[in-house]
């Protein structure tokens, strides 16, 4: 059913329809509306779930770890500082192969403290073994959460999934979202059937000490699983999704007008919407531009991205995060795809929108123009306040 609804509340509705048995909640802006909405649903008896108010995000992740290990579908949400606080638990969950779904309402990380949107939080944990999906709009956010459970719980996967939704831009924005009915969702997402669990009738020891003689195989197993997931399971789930709900599922990447494009900008998340608008306007003026949206960041769709970009002349990687001291992480990942390859576009890196600084159409126009003129060599900050940084003094204190 289509309705005009705030992003967070739409996420909560979808999660409710997925019927998690254990939800853990610790508040952090801008995730709060999601857990508040879920709490209200439980309080009204609309959602049969154990809602646990924990005392920190580390415990939020630990509670869903325990719940999932006991064979129950679980959910939690966080952002920024909260995500970073639970990092060791995230690695633990992936290592223990538990199919937990978590929403990361993307927010910048401290210091300085900043509650507005960028991607530094979720991108920082890209090595953790979690599958990471990025939504462009709230419809996609809902659809990705649905697919996340089916993907995570597949016995050939059994990996946790993080759905990344831009804080404020998506979480607090009202959009028209088609929320499917319970019956369709039940057809798509069956009851959770755990591959293993804590059960007195069939005891196992979980969370073992893996010494040098056994640890390495567990990491290989996750990596191997991620590759299979990328090429087999995600497309499978995506097709099932399309069949039941009549719209595209997670297609790993989205190629928007890239077929005959000379210049393409690559990005994750909601900023893609802005880039598409600018691309449309430039197309009207005869420019051959396109946009490559990456939906699945982990596992990384190497072949798909390579094939989408290899015939393009100029590629701009636009990121709302940076691996300080190197470049944007996506820039490093994508340039590596073309190492020692013959058909290599000119690849440029752009860092934008950190700490929630607005990404304007003018910024995007500037980037398309820059790319046409040959791009840059590495990491260019777009939208920086030059007055603040121009002096190049050691310590700048603005009174």
């Amino acid at each position, binding site marked *: 059913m289509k309705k005009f609804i705030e992003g967070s509340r739409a996420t909560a509705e979808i999660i409710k329809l997925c019927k998690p048995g254990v939800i853990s909640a610790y508040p952090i802006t801008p995730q709060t509306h999601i857990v508040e909405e879920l709490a209200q649903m439980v309080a009204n008896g609309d959602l049969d779930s154990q809602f646990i108010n924990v*005392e920190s995000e580390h415990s939020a992740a*630990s509670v869903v770890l325990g719940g999932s290990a*006991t064979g*129950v579908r679980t959910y939690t949400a966080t952002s920024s500082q909260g995500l970073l606080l639970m990092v060791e*638990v995230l690695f633990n969950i992936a290592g223990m192969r538990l199919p937990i779904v978590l929403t990361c309402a993307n927010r910048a990380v401290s210091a300085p403290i900043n509650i507005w949107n960028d991607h530094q939080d979720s991108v920082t944990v890209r090595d953790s073994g979690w599958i990471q999906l990025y939504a462009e709009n709230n419809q996609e956010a809902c659809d990705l959460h649905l697919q996340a459970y089916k993907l995570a719980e597949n016995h050939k996967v059994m990996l946790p999934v993080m759905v990344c939704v831009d804080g404020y831009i998506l979480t607090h924005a009202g959009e028209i979202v088609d929320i499917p009915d319970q019956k369709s969702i039940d057809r798509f997402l069956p009851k959770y059937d755990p591959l293993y669990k804590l059960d007195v009738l069939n005891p196992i*020891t979980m969370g073992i000490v893996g010494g040098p003689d056994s640890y390495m195989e567990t990491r290989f197993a996750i990596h191997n699983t991620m590759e299979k997931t990328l090429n087999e399971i995600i497309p499978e789930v995506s097709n099932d999704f399309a069949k039941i709900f009549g719209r595209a599922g997670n297609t790993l990447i989205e190629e928007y007008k890239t077929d005959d494009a000379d210049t393409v900008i690559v990005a994750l998340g909601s900023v893609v919407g802005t880039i598409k608008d600018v691309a449309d306007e430039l197309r009207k003026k005869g420019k051959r531009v396109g946009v490559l949206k990456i939906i699945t960041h982990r596992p990384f769709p190497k072949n798909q991205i390579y094939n989408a970009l290899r015939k393009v002349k100029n590629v701009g990687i636009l990121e709302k995060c940076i691996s300080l001291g190197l470049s944007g992480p996506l820039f490093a990942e994508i340039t590596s795809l073309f190492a020692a390859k013959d058909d290599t576009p000119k690849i440029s890196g752009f860092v934008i929108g950190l700490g929630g600084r607005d990404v304007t159409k003018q910024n995007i126009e500037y980037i398309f123009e820059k790319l046409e003129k040959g791009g840059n060599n590495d990491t260019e900050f777009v939208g920086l306040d030059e007055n603040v940084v121009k002096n190049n003094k050691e310590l700048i204190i603005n009174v």
Partner: protein
Amino acid sequence: MSDIKLFNPGHTACAGCGQSLAARLVLEAAGKNTIVANNTGCLEVFSTYYPQTAWGTPWIHSLFENCAAVASGIEAALIYLKKTDTNIIAQGGDGGTADIGLQALSGMFERGHNILYVCYDNEAYMNTGVQRSGLTPFGTNTTTSPVGLQAHGNKRPKKNIVEIAASHRIPYSASASVGYPQELQKKVQKALSIKGPKYIQIHVPCPLGWRSNPSQTIEIAKLAVETGLYPIIEYEYGDLVNSKKLLKPKPVTEYLKLQKRFKHLFAENAKQEMEEIQKIADDNIKRYKLI
């Protein structure tokens, strides 16, 4: 020995390890209808080196500080699955409980989960090599509170987690000692018969970290109690309801002299520290009405 026990031999605990004895006693008292969440520490490490495990019940280890939170998640799942008759035990050492794990412990108490938390108190971070924890007694020689030309060991008294637990007004908070194994088991059974959060802190000598004779583990545990240094107390809903009475408290020297971690206290220049330790014992006797 082919039938599988609740806690099986073949684990790699040191000979004479008080904690391995206590863990076995706890699990046998709890029975097979029990799920265990364990923090990182000696017990977890010596019992689960892949592919071997000493555990016969469902058992999970996550991280160092979160077993109380993991157990909270297990309980929530069991409630959701309508399987609420299973015992849930969350357990860890003194470091994992009183220091890094205090937040998760407090959260579990405050939310009222039906979980028994067991703290195996060997009075230091033993698994990492005998470093000082919040439950290391005053005057103890550990690697991070060493005896030196300008120091006599640990400068601070033990944090009182039994009272911290009791101040959450949970149904049951108690101390126990591996020196009194049958009493310990009775306490575990009593706790598991109560609904809500429970806390039992068990004093367990560590022959390696305490530098004591492995054969004297039980004797030393008993002496800690008999001197008043480790009072055996029970709190219910925040009130002190019981304490193990001492007929004639022994002087602390009887206990300290059996452990090389306290050897320095017998020197001339440590008279003041020795007196302070006797005072701690005397204060305990008064506070908990042990005589």
